[in-house]
């Protein structure tokens, strides 16, 4: 009797564990059958492509529809099967990090923060796969040269940070053109504050809960305009430079001059304020132009210059890469080139998300006011993507919080620099 019970209980346990394993088997066989019923021949190579969503959540046409359509031709030409997975922006990097370690990871992958992956050797160096002619056709090929190699090919380049100005408000204050440099920005802001005390003259979103989005519009562009190199010779970030001091002193002076008040550390959505006509000047990505037009704001923009006349833009450089452990690297690179070809990108810009063309044979569909910066070699030289270095996200998070503390009166600009560097080095 005892034995029976014992048997029963262990059977129960075995059963539960089997049930668990059973569902593993079931799901993988389902996946296998899914692949074989897809129409292509059974021995076709399967290429996995991982991308995030770009269509608006309520758009008619989804990312999945788009890529499925676009890859049809590619699949036929190369006798392969492309499996596209769309992963949400929330947790995207966690997904990539774990996914590339799962043994079932992607062949071609979209990444936004590439340093850690590249440094760890997870990405295939691409330079040898491209001919000089192909490289020359890309406007922004070199931007992908980060962490000591060409590990990625920039795909979503654009959204350069420029100073948007509400010209109706500026005219009210007696200005016909946007400010050209920092001094004018301060002078204009003070004047606007007198004429229109009900709006923000110039505002930065230091209350954004994502530290990186504040960095890209409110710190980095100014840092580059101040003429700084974010990384030192060893590839480590260095704030304790002339440019670092100039930038932080400038940011602090905005508060000292009365342009920012105490609420600046809770302002989260500066573009919203601009669209609603509640802010006269905001620095943000050029991609915002569409929604600002829709809101009926009469706007112009400035490529702001620093104290020495230097320009500097943060620009998005989200890229495509090939996994170093992909079993079909040749094919993966082919897919990557296909995805960034004028044909596919033009369709992408038209159907999913408008951006500037990647290649010289691509169509310019973005707001034409920006064409002069996106297709000018001189301006492209001032484009900067996220500096790639070890532990970058923590660095930005620490710096962001220290700048908040500066605006709350707890730290001086020099202390921001010292604290940030100290804190960052502690984690290494």
């Amino acid at each position: 009797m005892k034995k029976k019970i014992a048997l029963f209980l262990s059977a129960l346990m075995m059963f539960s564990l089997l049930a668990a394993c059973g569902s593993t088997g079931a799901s993988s066989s389902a996946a296998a059958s899914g692949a074989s019923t897809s129409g292509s021949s059974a021995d076709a190579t399967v290429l996995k492509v991982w991308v995030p969503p770009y269509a608006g959540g309520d758009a008619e046409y989804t990312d999945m529809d788009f890529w499925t359509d676009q890859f049809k031709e590619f699949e036929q030409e190369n006798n392969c099967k492309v499996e596209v997975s769309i992963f949400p922006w929330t947790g995207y990097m966690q997904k990539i990090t774990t996914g590339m370690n799962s043994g079932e990871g992607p062949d071609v992958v979209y990444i936004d923060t590439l340093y850690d992956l590249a440094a760890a050797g997870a990405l295939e160096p691409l330079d040898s796969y491209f001919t000089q002619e192909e490289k020359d056709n890309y406007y922004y090929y070199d931007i992908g040269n980060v962490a000591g190699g060409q590990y990625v090919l920039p795909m979503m380049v654009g959204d350069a940070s420029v100073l948007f100005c509400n010209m109706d408000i500026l005219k009210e204050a007696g200005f016909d053109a946007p400010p050209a440099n920092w001094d004018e920005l301060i002078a204009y802001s003070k004047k606007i504050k007198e004429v229109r005390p009900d709006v923000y003259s110039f505002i930065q979103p230091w209350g954004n809960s994502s530290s990186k989005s504040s960095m890209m519009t409110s710190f980095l562009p100014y840092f580059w305009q101040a003429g700084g190199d974010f990384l030192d010779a060893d590839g480590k970030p260095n704030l304790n430079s002339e440019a670092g001091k100039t930038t932080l002193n400038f940011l602090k002076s905005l508060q000292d001059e009365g342009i920012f008040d105490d609420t600046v550390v809770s302002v989260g959505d500066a573009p919203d304020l601009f669209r609603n006509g509640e802010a006269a000047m905001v620095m943000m990505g050029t991609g915002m132009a569409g929604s600002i037009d829709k809101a009926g704001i009469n706007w112009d923009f400035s490529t702001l210059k620093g104290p020495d006349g230097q320009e500097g833009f943060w620009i998005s450089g989200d890229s495509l890469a090939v996994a170093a452990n992909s079993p079909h690297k040749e094919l993966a690179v082919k897919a990557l080139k296909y995805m960034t070809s004028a044909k596919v990108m033009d369709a992408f810009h038209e159907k999913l998300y408008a951006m500037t063309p990647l290649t010289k044979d691509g169509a310019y569909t973005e707001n034409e006011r920006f064409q002069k910066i996106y297709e000018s070699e001189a301006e492209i030289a001032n484009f900067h993507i996220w500096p790639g270095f070890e532990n970058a996200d923590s660095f930005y998070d620490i710096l962001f919080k220290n700048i908040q503390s500066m605006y709350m009166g707890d730290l001086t600009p020099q202390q921001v620099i010292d604290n940030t560097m100290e804190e960052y080095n502690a984690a290494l």
Partner: protein
Amino acid sequence: MKKRGLTGRKQQAFYGILYILPSFVIILMFSIIPIILAIYFSFTKYDMYSPAEFIGLQNYEGVFKSSTFYSALWNTLKYVIVTVPVQTLLALLIAVFIADKMRGLYGALLKSTIFIPVIVSNIAAAAVWKVMLKTRGGIINNFLGLFGIGEVNWLGTKALAFLCICLVTIWKNVGYYMVIYYAGVMGIPKEQQEAALMDGASPAQRFWHVTVPNLRPITYMIVTLGIISSFQIFDIVYQLTGGGPGTSTITLAYMVYTYAFSNQKLGYASAIAVILLLFVLAIHWLQDKVFKER
């Protein structure tokens, strides 16, 4: 039939082991082993791509050198000190009041309503609160505006941002503890209450001398669960303030998250987590002592 020894302790123990075994296997595989791995990682430099490299106590040295860590530690302790007593007391008072004065349908309705936030996901809850707490255009400030109160900078002031995190946490938790307390109050033997009434005890006296002592085991459980969950507060901070402004709302779990996920600094993140674990264990031990002494 064969006589089975009722007192066959060995046999009973054997059954007991069989009963515990499945959950032991699961907890071992999916909790204990990962925790041991995390403790191991805390002595290494590890990013998931290359094998973990043993570096001794360097991660811990780094943690203790970091000033953010001390802010996070202090904030976390403050959360525990504020949220646990407030939510426990609030849950107790509401439960006792409903059990005592509102046995009708309305009381049942209130009880069910107060529980609802428990089933909302932390992320959704924080997202809604964030919209409501907006300085400009947030419904809370609009409402206060009706009484002539100017725009309150809820999430942009150190003290208020901290308070908001606490309030949302309490809002989310009270219902659960209240239901448990309610069950406890209903389980107090009627005779005790009646005896106290006979002795002419006031409601306050009955509360302190009958209700509270009877609920002690439940209080112990609620405080334990509260401490554990408050120490791990993450989602609400992440969504509502991102740890800011400055480092005024950053917590240890938030720090663990940024290092582990944004930067794949798993060794460093694990070191913070191990310190966090030690703190929870220490506080739990203290709490045990306090409860036993009484």
